[in-house]
Each structure stands twice: as structure tokens, then as C-alpha cells.
């Protein structure tokens, strides 16, 4: 696998990560509470910025941690079986996302345990300072782990094959791309857009987002299976 194709896989995996919506939901809710509690615009921006930074740092730390575990366990090149498992995970999760990602009801409620959703919702309401907001960003990424584990794992497998400097570049790319939607929503809120408009857009496009996330997982899973597992097994076409 060339450096360019490795970076392309990491970028697509990060885009799939970015298409998951839990962190965006929490950010929307956090902004609503902060504005509704009559905080100044500067404080709202500070709280939401801390949230985005927390989510970004947690995504990078998770990826680096998984890559380290993969490196320590399998060295620079994981066995074919592990690649096949990663591809299977991507395809299976893709089908699951197509079927279950959003709850079949009004709004943008997700298929995560209701106790976790209520906990995040209550913590969002209780968040008053930047440190809490940062921790909430971290928490929202952990709560989404069920969905993001597949792109993280596949990216980790790809990253450990790269030379040292390129590993850092790939992790950086993943971190930046995975928080792009959060940064977009943060920019919209900071520039004074109404929350209702953002939430209406999210609600009316939720089926598309669900389809895109599921399709992305399946396509990347199949692509990696063909380029890495099949090609290596058959010795090239």
C-alpha cells in the first residue's frame, strides 16, 4: 500500500467518523443551554470551542492508542486475518448504521442507550465552565465509540504501516477531518445563526446522513478488503 493510498484510506475513514452525529447533537444542545442561560456570546464561544477541542483531542488520542496497541501486538504489518476482521467490522457496522443509526421517531435521537443519552443531556445542562465543556467533548466521543471503532481500527492498521513522520501526518489528518462538521456547526453558532435552523437542517437530512455514513463504511470496507486482503492473498491480479 503506497503512502498516498494509505492517507486516502485514513481520510475517508475520518470522513466516515465525521458523519456520525452524537458530538454534533451534544454541541447543538450545549449551545442551546448556554444561549438560553443568558451567557455572553464570548462565553458561548468559549464553551463551544472547549467542546470541539475536547472532541478533537479525544479522537486523536483514541486513534493513537489503538495504533499503539496494534503496533505492539502485530508490529508494522498486521496479519491478513486482522485486516479481514477490520473489513468485516466496517461492512457489518455499515449495514447496522443503515438500519439502526437514528431512532424511528421525530428529532435526531440516536440508537445509543437511553441512559447514556440522558446522562449526556443532563451533563450538557449542568455545564458552566470550559473544563466541563472540554470533558463533555471527550465524553461524547467515548459514547460514540460503538460507531467509530471500525474507522478508528482500520485507520490504525493503515497508520502502523507508514514511516514515522507519515504516521503523525495521518493522525493529524484524521483529527482535523473528523472534527470538520463540529467546526462548521461551531462557526455557524459563533456567527449568530439560529439553532433552530441548524437543527431543522439536521433533522430533514438525517436519512441522507445515515445512508452516507453506512455506505462509506461498506465502501471503505470492501475497498480495503480488495486492495489489501485479496490482492496480498492472490499475489496481485
Amino acid at each position, binding site marked *: 500500500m503506497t503512502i498516498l493510498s494509505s492517507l486516502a484510506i485514513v481520510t475517508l475513514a475520518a470522513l466516515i467518523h465525521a458523519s456520525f452525529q452524537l458530538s454534533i447533537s451534544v454541541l447543538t444542545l450545549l449551545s*442551546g443551554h448556554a444561549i438560553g442561560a443568558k451567557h455572553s456570546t464570548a462565553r458561548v464561544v468559549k464553551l463551544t470551542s472547549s467542546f470541539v477541542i475536547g472532541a478533537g483531542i479525544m479522537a486523536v488520542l483514541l486513534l493513537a492508542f489503538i495504533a499503539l496497541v496494534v503496533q505492539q501486538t502485530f508490529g508494522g504489518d498486521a496479519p491478513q486475518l486482522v485486516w479481514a476482521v477490520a473489513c468485516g467490522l466496517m461492512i457489518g457496522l455499515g449495514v447496522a448504521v443503515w438500519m439502526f443509526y437514528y431512532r424511528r421517531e*421525530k428529532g*435526531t435521537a440516536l440508537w445509543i442507550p437511553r441512559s447514556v443519552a440522558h446522562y449526556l443531556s443532563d451533563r450538557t445542562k449542568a455545564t458552566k465552565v470550559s473544563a466541563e465543556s472540554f470533558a463533555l467533548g471527550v465524553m461524547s466521543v467515548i459514547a460514540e465509540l460503538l460507531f467509530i471503532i471500525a474507522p478508528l481500527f482500520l485507520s490504525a492498521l493503515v497508520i502502523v504501516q507508514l514511516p514515522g513522520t507519515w504516521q503523525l501526518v495521518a493522525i493529524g489528518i484524521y483529527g482535523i477531518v473528523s472534527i470538520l462538521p463540529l467546526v462548521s456547526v461551531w462557526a455557524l453558532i459563533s456567527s449568530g445563526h439560529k439553532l433552530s435552523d441548524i437543527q431543522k437542517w439536521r433533522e430533514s437530512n438525517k436519512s441522507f446522513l445515515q445512508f452516507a455514513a453506512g455506505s462509506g463504511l461498506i465502501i471503505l470496507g470492501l475497498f480495503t478488503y480488495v486492495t489489501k486482503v485479496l490482492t496480498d492473498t492472490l499475489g496481485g491480479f
Partner: protein
Amino acid sequence: MSQLIDVVKRQGKRPTETFTREKLHASVVAACLSVKTPAGQTEKIAEAVCDAVIDWLQIRPEVTSGDLRRIAARKLHIHHPDAAYIYEQHRIII
């Protein structure tokens, strides 16, 4: 209000609370402010919604928090559809 009204929260999973106008008022104000409504208009809308909801509560000694939210959203929709949308969505965003 002359009588106490119990609000059953999250299908009984959290302790029942007594209805307070202040709490409803604060929640409507928060919804209006979150869609950039001016403070003066927000206060007027919140008062109108609280009056309408209390009117609806007159013959009900016990309501669920979901019912309360639904009725408040319906009354709020008359004055400010965007705020009503955010008010309704609050529990179904995550």
C-alpha cells in the same frame, strides 16, 4: 394557582415534582433566547405561554413532563414557531 399539580417525570423513572410556573417560564425563556429572540419579546411570550398552560392545567391534578412539554410547545408555536421547534426538540436531539 389554588391547587398543587404533580408532574410525573420520565415515565416515573425520576421523582414526581410539583408544578411551578417559574420553571416553565425559565424553560420557555431559554428556548426563545436560543433562537435569538429579543429579551423583551421573550418575557412577553413566556408570560403568555405560562398563562395558557396554567389554564390547561386547571382540571388536571397530575400530568407527565412529556404532556407539559407538548402543550407548552403547542402554545409557544402560536407566538414563536422557531422557539417552539427547539422547545419540542430538546429531549429528542440526542
